[in-house]
């Protein structure tokens, strides 16, 4: 412990050189340097390709394997819910995307806590989506801890009657 050999120093120097070279490549030359046209076109597709490469495997895979059954659907459900809420928001003309993201994130732990190993039907998976829509559109507080949408004032009406 505490010893630094020559190989480690060489690795550090090499990494520093690579970092400096890649960051200073654009202004090392005196001539104006622009990307080729094909590279500029390719960079238009790079961000969404990077996001797809990171997000899609996390949604459709679990423990390094594709999801074979619906026994563990939370990643798929969360992805579908966020996508549907975003598309609904965009169709409705809302540009503040966090309106759709906040309910989706809020109900996510509830969905994961409800019967994580049980077989859930597509209808059950659609419940959080419905709750997210309701919460977003009508600002009705909903809770998914029990797997069902509950309205906070419902018990008051039942106790009065």
């Amino acid at each position, binding site marked *: 412990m505490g010893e630094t050999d020559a190989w480690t120093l060489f690795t550090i120097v090499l990494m520093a050189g690579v970092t400096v070279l890649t960051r200073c490549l654009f202004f090392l030359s005196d001539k104006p340097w622009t990307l080729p046209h094909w590279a500029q076109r390719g960079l238009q597709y790079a961000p969404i390709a990077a996001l797809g490469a990171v997000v*899609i495997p996390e949604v459709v895979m679990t423990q390094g394997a594709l999801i074979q059954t619906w026994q563990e659907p939370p990643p798929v459900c969360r992805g579908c819910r966020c996508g549907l809420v975003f598309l609904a928001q965009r169709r409705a003309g809302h540009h503040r995307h966090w309106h759709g993201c906040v309910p989706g994130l809020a109900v996510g732990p509830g969905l994961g806590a409800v019967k994580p190993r049980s077989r859930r039907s597509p209808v059950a998976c659609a419940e959080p989506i419905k709750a997210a829509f309701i919460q977003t559109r009508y600002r009705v507080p909903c809770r998914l801890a029990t797997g069902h949408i509950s309205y906070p004032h419902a018990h008051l009406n039942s106790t009065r009657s």
Partner: protein
Amino acid sequence: MLSLATSPLRIVSMTVSGMAAVVAWALPLKLNIVVAIAVAVTLALIIDAQRTPHTGGGSHG
């Protein structure tokens, strides 16, 4: 991610990158992401070049 899917070619790029990342999942050091990006961008460039062969540009992305 969906906010960037503003054209059919970008949707194709997203789908291809996701499929390639799943196929190349076994690669070490998260190289499946690099491979997926390279495959998706290359395919999008090829399709874009075939869609606009004579204009010399005019990307729809």
